[in-house]
């Protein structure tokens, strides 16, 4: 068993390299806007997974970070004329700050309380987004220009935009990967497994959790800000609690606590949504709900988790 696991781990860099090459070549074969959407939601789900999969905290308010960053980025780029990279940075920082506020309030509780507190806080953000003039209320923040990266590269070209999104995703993904595999990540896992022991070992558990929350919120913000540039708009959908539910679904479906799971989950859900849009109409919600139920009841490891389990079992034989 042990040796097989390390075989899997030895294969990991190879898998990453293959995926990276696929990512580089993809826009020439698959519709770029679609890919960009997958990458944005993939980063969002990875950031969310950092919290749920590695710290064991279920946030039901992550849409607040996605949406807030989207609005901040959109507003700064459109109305203040910032360049896109500064817009993404601003969105990330705004989401991080909001994450700090959420975290400070919610981190004292765990489990279900934590989920409900984050949900309620996100609901406040939703009401604010609805009422503040700059967000455009129900119309959304429309007509955000993609602009020129560093003032040089024109992003209105879909391929150029794709590579920016891909780069952003890779950086975000790398940060998450490093976080998980750093001593900090080990402490987080220790907290998840046995919080009293972590406390007795002298760790300031609350501080570690808060830091993880802020990182997760910031990266969710990065995803939201990037998404705003891709679609040139930010709307209430991004702050609605349905989006918070969606990211849970993506993570769960792809594989909780796996590095690549959230990306796979995001790709599956986004493709489903776009395919179902043409065919089933009002059944979209029902199907999403059914996937949720199936994942919880029968499929808790998620796609990537199941594959890894299969590989391990095959290794034993």
């Amino acid at each position, binding site marked *: 068993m042990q040796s097989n696991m390390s075989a899997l781990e030895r294969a990991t860099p190879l898998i990453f390299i293959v995926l990276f090459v696929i990512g580089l070549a993809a826009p020439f*074969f698959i519709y770029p806007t679609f890919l960009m959407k997958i990458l944005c939601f993939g980063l969002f789900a990875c950031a969310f997974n950092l919290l749920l999969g590695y710290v064991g905290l279920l946030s039901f308010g992550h849409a607040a970070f996605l949406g807030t960053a989207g609005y901040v980025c959109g507003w700064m780029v459109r109305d203040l004329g910032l360049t896109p990279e500064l817009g993404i940075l601003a969105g990330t920082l705004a989401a991080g700050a909001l994450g700090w506020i959420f975290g400070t309030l919610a981190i004292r509780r765990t489990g279900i309380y934590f989920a409900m507190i984050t949900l309620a806080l996100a609901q406040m953000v939703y009401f604010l987004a609805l009422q503040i003039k700059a967000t455009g209320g129900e119309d959304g923040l429309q007509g955000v220009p993609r602009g020129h990266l560093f003032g040089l590269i024109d992003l209105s070209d879909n391929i150029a935009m794709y590579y920016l999104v891909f780069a952003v995703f890779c950086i975000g993904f790398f940060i998450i990967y490093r976080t998980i595999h750093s001593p900090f990540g080990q402490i987080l896992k220790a907290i998840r497994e046995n919080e009293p022991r972590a406390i007795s070992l002298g760790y300031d558990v609350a501080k570690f959790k808060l830091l993880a929350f802020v990182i997760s919120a910031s990266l969710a913000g990065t995803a939201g800000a990037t998404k705003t540039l891709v679609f040139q708009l930010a709307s209430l959908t991004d702050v609605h609690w349905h989006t918070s539910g969606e990211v849970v679904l993506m993570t769960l479906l792809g594989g909780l606590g796996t590095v690549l799971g959230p990306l796979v989950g995001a790709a599956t859900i986004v493709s489903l949504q776009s395919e179902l849009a043409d065919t089933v109409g009002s059944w979209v919600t029902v199907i999403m709900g059914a996937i949720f139920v199936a994942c919880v009841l029968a499929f808790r490891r998620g796609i990537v988790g199941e594959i890894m389990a299969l590989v391990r079992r095959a290794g034993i034989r």
Partner: protein
Amino acid sequence: MHVRKLLTLACTAAFAAFAGGAHAQISGDTVKVGVLTDMSGTYSDLAGAGAVLATQMAIDDFVAAEKPDFKVELVSADHQNKADIASNKAREWFEREGVDTVTELVSTTTALAVMKVAKEMNRITLMSGPGSTPITNEQCTDLNVHYTYDTYALANGTAKAVTQQGGDSWFFLTADYAFGQALEKDSSSVVTATGGKVLGSVRHPFPASDFSSFLLQAQASGAKIIGLANAGADTTNAIKQAAEFGITPKQQLAGLLMFISDVHSLGLKNTQGMYLTTGFYWDLNEDTRAWSQRYFEKQKRMPTMVQAGQYSSVMHYLKAVKAAGTDEAGKVMAQMKSTPINDFFATNGRIRDDGRMVHDMYLAQVKSPAESKGPWDYYHIRQTIPADEAFQPLSESRCPLVKK
């Protein structure tokens, strides 16, 4: 994926080569009409599947009557009221499936997002469902037609007519977001201009389900008319609770954004006596009855103005494609703008430079249960509001395309 794309490219190239000659210049000899609408959410009753049906009827009728030398195809999708899904889908339709026009687009967020994509790709958008005025003002494009109604027309029509008929003191119940506030602002300026008084207003959160507190405040104001500057479930709940608290019929309600589907779901008992403005009613005349009956047989519901307008706009578009002999957006739009619209939906309708289609609107009052002869017999038409008065005048337009 790869091979298919190359094949498509090759085919498109081949078609392009042929198209120049004998035939009319219609890409692929097919006109593709896309219906992007809300099939499952808030607006699915007033647009949704009914709008897809209306489009199919328009296409069938057009092909049967005009015998065009090109094919017409319909594609439809659910935008789920999400702007990113809508713009993604529209882009995909334009780039990969050769869709010529995206239509319907209920909910302003999705409409504005798709308008931008369409303009960028040089395609036409026909909007029947969305209502916000930025579509023909700040955000206007020269390839968009805002066909059926807008909130300005509804609010103004109702506010003006009601004030003229003696309802000269108003209190507004306003959904507290940009849309509700705009609706309140537009209507209260009309009320004042027509010689009425606005006694006050209360902002309620959006969405809200219990309106009793706000209604009691409206009641305490003593205003003759309570204007509902909200939409959808907020409006229907407010109406229902106004009847419960005995506020109506002592004071009267005016729905600033209401559809026949709302009246149908609330029932006449709750809505009787209300004033509202509509762009279409199935029981206006022989033509509207004939068309609506055909629609009813398939959908088992009478059409809303959005669904009727959808038929009319697609028909107008297809006729323009035939007359222009091309599906190139600019030429088709020029043809559409130069041809007046005369059908069961509109009389002498015309499309202005800002993309607004102007046509007569109707002030309706909801019948009492005793006056109604059965389901869908809901409106007394009290007044026809002529096209020139119904919509925002061009002189007030904030659309950069309008030359002053």
